[in-house]
């Protein structure tokens, strides 16, 4: 249904990041003096994927599905309860002290809100140079200031604005500052947590293009977290759909957008409005009932069954595994997996 990505990554490229069965539960405590644990919010529950060099993995899901917790686990800003993260074959979770500090340089993050993720009291030059303060061994030979100017130039800002403060920039420009900071230490992986969702449409396209250009130039891998399926389509090579802490569908871009097979993926795709009024009523419309259930008390069996129109008895009793199912090439966690292209805008 679509042309393959022209600037696609090399499928035999080295695996940079390998995540297996990652679990993070946040305890829910009750009681004023004697706290007892009464439950756990299952924010991330058994997530596995591989990320290759130069590849972009899109992670899509609604709020509360655990995608930002996943980002924090990958940065080791939160410690997982179990599971493994291997970075270029090394066990990232076992690292301590100097080794960990060194490794942190290799995974950087770009945040959603360019208004709160930059310190208003620091000049742009100081913000972008801060990574070098934390990692003095990575200080550029040509001098920090020169390198910062170079970085500002790379992300499309005027290097002469190095002494300005964040409030003097617009939202899109601030996001560029955040990107420059993320690039400073030449990371191998950049986690982009909703990097364009706070931006206006016309500026959003500029930032998306910048991210793509930087990847082509420096060959980094991205984990691109978003809730907007049409934004993700333009940048990702692989796509993971998350629901209540679990991956429900994982495959290449073409597989997921060409033949979405999990009912939740189909519902998400069907809910994305397409900017073409002539397509009104042409697509199958799936409007899910209700809200996602409480992650502290997920339903038995399949977590999506309470909102699913295909649910049967087996969905109540058996938790579907994320695996390749008959008739489908990508991995799907559904007993009733079946491709459905009627939710997609039809080719005119």
């Amino acid at each position, binding site marked *: 249904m679509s042309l393959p990505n022209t600037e696609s990554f090399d499928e035999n490229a080295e695996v940079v990041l390998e995540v297996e069965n990652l679990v993070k539960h946040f305890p829910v405590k009750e009681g004023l003096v004697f706290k007892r644990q009464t439950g756990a919010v299952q924010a991330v529950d058994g997530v596995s994927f591989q990320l290759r060099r130069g590849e972009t993995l899109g992670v899509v899901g609604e*709020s509360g599905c655990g995608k930002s917790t996943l980002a924090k686990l990958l940065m080791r800003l939160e410690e997982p309860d179990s599971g493994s993260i291997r970075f270029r074959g090394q066990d990232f979770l076992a690292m301590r002290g100097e080794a960990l500090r060194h490794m942190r340089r290799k995974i950087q993050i770009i945040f959603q809100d360019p208004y709160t993720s930059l310190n208003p009291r620091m000049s742009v030059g100081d913000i972008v140079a801060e990574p070098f303060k934390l990692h003095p061994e990575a200080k550029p030979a040509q001098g920090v200031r020169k390198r910062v100017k170079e970085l500002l130039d790379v992300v499309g800002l005027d290097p002469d604005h190095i002494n300005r403060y964040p409030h003097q920039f617009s939202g899109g420009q601030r996001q560029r500052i955040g990107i420059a900071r993320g690039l400073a230490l030449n990371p191998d992986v950049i986690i982009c947590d909703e990097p364009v969702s706070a931006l206006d449409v016309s500026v*959003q396209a500029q930032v998306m293009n910048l991210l793509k250009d930087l990847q082509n130039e420096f060959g980094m891998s991205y984990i691109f977290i978003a809730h907007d399926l049409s934004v993700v389509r333009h940048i990702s090579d692989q796509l993971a759909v998350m629901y209540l802490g679990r991956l429900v569908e994982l495959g290449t871009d073409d597989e997921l957008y060409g033949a979405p097979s999990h009912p939740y993926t189909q519902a998400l795709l069907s*809910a994305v409005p397409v900017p073409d009024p002539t397509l009104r009523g042409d697509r199958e419309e799936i409007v899910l009932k209700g809200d996602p259930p409480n992650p502290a008390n997920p339903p038995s069996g399949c977590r999506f069954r309470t909102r699913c129109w295909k649910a049967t008895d087996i969905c109540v009793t058996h938790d579907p595994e994320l695996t390749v199912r008959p008739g489908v090439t990508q991995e799907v966690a559904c007993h009733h997996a079946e491709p459905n292209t009627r939710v997609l805008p039809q080719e005119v």
Partner: protein
Amino acid sequence: MTTTPPSTPPASGPGAFASSGPLLEVKDLHVEFRTKSGVAQAINGLNFSLEAGETLAILGESGSGKSVTAQTIMGILDMPPGHIAGGEIRYRGQDLLAMKPEQRRLLRGVNISMIFQDALSSLNPVLPVGWQIAEMFRVHQKMKRKAARERAIGLMKRVGIPAPEQRVGDYPHQFSGGMRQRIMIAMAIALEPDVLIADEPTTALDVTVQAQVMRLLKDLQTENNMGLILITHDLGVVADVADKIAVMYAGRVMEASDVYEIYAKPGHPYTKGLLESLPRLDSAETRLNAIPGLPPSLTDMPTGCPFSPRCPYATDLCRNELPELLPIVGQHTSACHYRDDIYHGRLQTPEEAQT
């Protein structure tokens, strides 16, 4: 989704108003903000009209003046610093801006109502939601508490809140984002207004919930034959539900038309650029055609066309002379000196002309 054809004006409005002309009409509206660092011209000569049962989408980026438009119509603009520098807003022929505040208060919520983007900060956190919905009946219709509560339960049921009898006493924080937005909608439609203004009603919601809320709004509109003004930045939502669209930029309408026309044949470079810069579900193109540059600062407007610094087609004429909003074909209007050429796809950028 089914579309409601713009129907004939309702036979009877609230008795006090003679129904002549459009339901709501905005003429040459000017709004500015007088601040210490200068005068920000938020709205510079805005014109549009709305009929009963019709959905008008006002599309624009942040700072384009779309929310100020909504606040001015509702009469909830902060003044000062806001200042209405000129123009008319006519509701059933009566100029709202010429009315006394007491008169306007009688219209607000009863005839013209509004839904805000952020339901959590728009609801009172220390009062039960049922109380807040019932307040509409108690204040405007002097209804007794018990009867008002019954009506509130009925409304909660209508907007799709499960088990309203049990939840009528719950507080806003006990509801999810989508449910809170439904409560806001219940309050807005409580007194069956003729005009409903929805300011980014689904922006803070997840896509699956967004679809539910938009469908609810559309159903309610059909049921009550309301005129709906949908303020949004989302070209996708507009394509799904609107009848007419007005594209705003720097406080002006750049292009206005029937929704089918504008997507197929945009008559303004800004609209064209927006449509081309949009990431689309049905295209895997890696590069997006971004519009270069940034919207102008409202305190320091460029001379001539406000879009000219970002426009690939701009000429000296554009930089010096402000284009008026003039018709291209029928109801399709555009504020571009080269509106006909853009519309027919005859215009080339300097780079295109060279190659």
